[in-house]
């Protein structure tokens, strides 16, 4: 029996591997940069980003895919990853100013990666974004990004694919924010 258990573990390791891997640092995509650049918004600051109150702290630190941990390259926190991704996009578009009165804040409200299935996997991310002008709240919205993709029985294929798709969810979540006309107006577009 012991041999069978050992053999099963070895088989699982061969098929899936076991490791902790950070997602790569966010790289500003051209679509987001051009959207922000041409949006007419003012240069903005980025304030506090954190896990929403009442949620399990582990939700902010890592997600799991077939026994592998996927974590953030930014301070072991996915809410910080979201913040740094936003700053990277704003900087690439020339719309970041650490001294601006307008500032964007965020709270991570959902963070899921489900890639155990052999045929399909999905990820869900959501964040509560606010924009303040000084102390005045001028934008307040929860945005949600759900992604679904074809998965594989083979861990060596499924795990990197899940990691890439999961990280891309942050890019897509931020793209929703940049496309929101209310967000643009709050950030000074058209003024």
């Amino acid at each position, binding site marked *: 029996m012991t041999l*069978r258990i050992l*053999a099963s573990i070895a088989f699982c390791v061969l098929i899936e591997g076991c490791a902790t891997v950070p997602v790569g640092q966010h790289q500003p*995509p051209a679509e987001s940069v051009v959207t922000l650049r041409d949006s007419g918004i003012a240069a903005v600051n980025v304030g506090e980003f954190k896990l929403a109150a009442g949620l399990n702290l582990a939700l902010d630190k890592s997600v799991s895919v077939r026994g592998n941990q996927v974590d953030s390259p930014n301070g072991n926190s996915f809410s910080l990853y979201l913040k740094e991704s936003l700053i990277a996009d704003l900087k*690439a578009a020339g719309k970041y100013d650490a001294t601006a009165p307008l500032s964007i804040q965020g709270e991570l409200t959902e963070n899921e990666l489900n890639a155990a299935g052999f045929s399909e996997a999905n990820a869900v991310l959501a964040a509560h974004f606010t924009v303040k002008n000084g102390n005045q709240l001028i934008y307040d919205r929860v945005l949600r990004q759900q992604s679904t993709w074809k998965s594989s029985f083979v861990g060596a294929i499924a795990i990197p694919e899940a990691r890439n798709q999961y990280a891309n969810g942050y890019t897509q979540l931020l793209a929703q924010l940049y496309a929101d006309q209310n967000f643009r107006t709050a950030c000074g577009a058209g003024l």
Partner: protein
Amino acid sequence: MRLWMSAAGTTRSRVLYLTLLLAASSLSGCATMYVDNGIKDIAPVEFHHPQPSQPVQLLFTFETKGTPNGRATESLKKQVSDTVVASGVFSSVSGEPVTGGALMSIVINNVPITDNAFGKGFATGLTFGLAGNTVSDGYVCTLDFQAHPGSAKLSKVARHAIHTTVGAKGAPPNATKAPSPRDAVTTMTRQIVGNALKDLTADPAFGQ
């Protein structure tokens, strides 16, 4: 085979045997990478150099089957930037906005060419390399350039491939053996970016 026959009597032995075989197959892989000769390095003199040259903002993304791959992007970002700098086409290359607003986006998408690559590699491993195979990876480089905000976008596409032989398999035709996997990827990146950039500079609309 004799081992298999003698082990076939008990389930325990069979499970152990299969596991050892799988472990051996995964360790016995002897892969060699070859860069396709379809496109070559571009010398700086082959680029059309506009006068005066302008600064450009460069954005780079490496994709795997169309999905951004952050770790690979990080790994190749500097090399892509160095290739653009070495071309001498632009007066400076930066990740942030530049005077004049020129923006160039380079996306390299890794797409599978060989069907069932995992199955082929698995079969090679299972036969301890006797059943050699070649697996090919395709790369599509899309270069978009905008001289300034609001101007028309120029797009160029270049294609490349890396072939990997596993087990007892001869070198693929029309390809150059790479000293290491890293060399294969850096050579492919330098050549595919150089060729896309050369096409851009040859466009009469570029530099106007």
